[in-house]
């Protein structure tokens, strides 16, 4: 996020500090130190070539009664490279190569592969190679492979939390000037969208971003089909109060069923008060019904924001670290969508039993509304729902 402001439905307060598995680290350590010479270029040793972590989540929810298991595993192989930067002079620059693999298993009881589950498979979520270089006045990186990304702290116009995309991401950063340039040239998995009338053959996904010390500009050059968009985001960070905001313009692909023409959206997040023990955060936003980028942080696109296309309103988030092992949170949203009230309040209690192991109780209430969500009753009645989770991070 780049600021203390919280945008999204999940608290980022870290009650738990993931710890590594020392046994496996000890076993893997030194594997990549084998090095060797390749055409006279000698490998440099690195201190931690392999790092891995994961998260296992058991969820019980009602109503309707459901149980699901999620396992996320990620591993990084990091290695310093002495790349021959200028072959004619033989000078060398220090680059770092990193191979990142993230796999995910998600299974809901009674839901098999044919009806939406992913079956007994450990799906590949992210798999990319990154080459990065830290220079005196600038740093650069190139990330190749299936990856997730987000442009800006809000991700209103460009973010893909719903699924990774095969892409090449290049970045150039000038820390002294607080300037960063980022560009992505990706390719959508057209096996799923070829038969949309506005997608032909290979469908590219491209965006560019310029980020300064307090603001950033994102240009969605080519989204799904011929989607286009522009966004302007701002941020301010302070010791007690921080805020971020993003204003975006979007135009759906021509020929699509979506609203045709340029439409707008704006979301802002402000930390009203906070300390090491508590935080009060307010999100306000308004999203045009036709603001439907395929890859966005909007809830309607599978993202982390509570706002959807057509939503207007505010959301108040409070969190209180009552004890070092207890985190109490409340998320209350008062939104209007397509002219109807779409409100919810949610209480969450997280208890950390030991580093990496925690239980989460959630209780949410929605007033009667015709707005249908995946878990709301079809008749629009008010609903009280509960959820219990066991989370193990390692």
């Amino acid at each position, binding site marked *: 996020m780049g600021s203390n402001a919280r945008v999204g439905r999940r608290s980022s307060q870290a009650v738990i500090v993931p710890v590594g598995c020392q046994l496996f680290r000890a*076993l*893997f350590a*030194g*594997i*990549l130190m*084998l*090095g*060797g*010479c*390749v*055409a*006279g*270029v*000698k*490998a*440099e040793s690195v201190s931690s*070539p*392999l790092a891995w972590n994961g998260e296992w989540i058991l969820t019980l929810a009602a109503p309707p009664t459901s149980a699901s298991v999620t396992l996320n595993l990620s591993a990084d*192989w990091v*290695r310093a*490279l*002495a*790349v*021959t930067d200028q*072959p*004619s002079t*033989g000078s060398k620059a220090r*680059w770092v*190569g990193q*191979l990142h*693999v993230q*796999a995910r298993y998600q299974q809901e009881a009674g839901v098999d592969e044919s009806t939406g589950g992913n079956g007994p*498979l*450990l*799906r*590949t*979520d992210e*798999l990319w*190679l990154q*080459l990065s270089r830290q220079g005196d006045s600038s740093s650069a990186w190139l990330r*190749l*492979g*299936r990856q997730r990304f987000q442009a800006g702290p809000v991700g209103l116009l460009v973010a893909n939390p719903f*699924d*990774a995309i*095969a*892409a090449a991401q290049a970045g150039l950063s000038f820390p002294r000037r607080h300037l960063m340039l980022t560009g992505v040239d*990706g*390719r*959508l*998995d*057209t*096996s799923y969208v*070829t038969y949309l009338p506005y997608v032909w*053959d*290979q*469908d590219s996904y491209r965006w560019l971003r310029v980020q300064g010390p307090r603001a950033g500009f994102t240009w969605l050059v080519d989204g799904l089909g011929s989607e286009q968009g522009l966004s302007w985001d701002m941020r301010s960070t302070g010791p007690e109060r921080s805020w971020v905001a993003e204003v975006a313009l979007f135009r759906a692909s021509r020929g699509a069923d979506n609203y045709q023409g340029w439409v707008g959206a704006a979301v802002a997040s402000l930390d009203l008060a906070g300390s090491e023990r508590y935080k009060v955060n307010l999100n306000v936003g308004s999203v045009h019904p036709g603001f439907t980028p395929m890859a966005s942080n909007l809830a309607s696109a599978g993202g982390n924001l509570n706002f959807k296309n057509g939503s207007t309103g505010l959301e108040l988030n409070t969190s209180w670290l009552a004890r070092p092992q207890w985190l109490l949170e409340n998320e209350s949203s008062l939104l209007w969508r397509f002219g109807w009230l779409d409100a919810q309040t949610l209480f969450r209690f997280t208890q950390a039993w030991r580093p990496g192991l925690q239980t989460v109780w959630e209780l949410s209430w929605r007033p009667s509304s015709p707005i249908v969500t995946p878990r709301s009753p079809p008749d629009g009645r008010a609903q009280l729902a509960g959820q219990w989770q066991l989370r193990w991070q390692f």
Partner: protein
Amino acid sequence: MNRYFRSRRPPSLLAGILLLALASGGPFVGSALAQPAVSPALDIHGLFTLRADQYHGAVPLSPPGSLPPGLADSQRREAASGQFGWGVQQVTRLQLRLEPMPQHELVLTLCHLGWWGVDQYTSGTYGAPAFLSDPFRVEELYASLPVRQGRIFIGRQYFQLGPMGLLAATPLGDEQLPSAVTGLLWEGPLLSAWSGAAVVARLAVEPPDEAHPQARPHDLLGVRLTPPRRNVGINLLLAGPQGEQGLSLDWDQREGLRSHSAEIAVARLPDSNRWVWAAAGRSQPALASDPAPSSPSSGWSWQWAALDPAYPVTLTQLRDQGGDLPFAPGEAGWELRWDQPVRPGIAAMVSWRLRLQLTGKPPINQLEAGWTWAAGAGLTLAGSYQHTWTSPLGYGRARVEVRYGF
């Protein structure tokens, strides 16, 4: 082939090692006995390859029936328009090797492959059998155990009999799903200082039908014998996947920094008395065994082959089976290649490949030029352009490749 990741070589040469391991210590020479187990309890290696191809010109269409009608129509339209985009293929291999006790190994090789988008002709992405969201596939999973006479390899594994793999081999192709077989491989010494290797594998079982009331297994049974102090080997294919049988004689010699290999084989189908022949050879710098430009090396390489159109062996290193020998049955020809270092870490290459068609069709010429940059330990960048002349037209392929091994 089942020891290709086990070498302690620099990672960027991993692909070259796949073949080098065959030439220096594969099952066919039985030298594994001389390698003491000094590895740690758990070892892990990997290789990430990103390859971008672009075609232009009169590219050949996929064989009839190999694509669903809708995709075949799209391919025809795309080929007719001549508007090809870049096809990007991503392949990742990871190998974990566990050594619970000295000389006992359990090897797991995982493979993940897919394309960035799957709807273009480039790189054969039409009808792609895999997606990037797919999980890693188990490519190899075998145990390597010492026995009284030699060593056995049990499980799913790659293998190759002889330096060329003309009679029995499981090619390691990136375009197709793994060809490893599940079986038992033994290698070790025999009487009178001979050494040998044998492989027994079950490839598939055909369910019973009206014509065949019994289930029909497709097995593989091959044997290799190497006389003492000779650089030759005798390979016997007693039963191939289609019941084919064959015999081959190979020769492998290293002189200084060059290696020379050749193999001549005869084979027949089970219901035929006609033996058909095949021959192939290779001469190259010792480390330049990778057909793709991946490792800077110097000097010339030469490959040649001549294969009867009816050569029936189906598990082999031939091009049409996804192997590294760039010829198919019914072809005769050669490939000449020159690698020249131009700067530290950078090498240029040029190659000429001639494929004469024994069936009477016009010959196919391929000229390729490229460069390889060993940018760092484990990191290799390469680019090349290959043009293929067929009668009456031709097509070209540009390729950029990044490899990262560890």
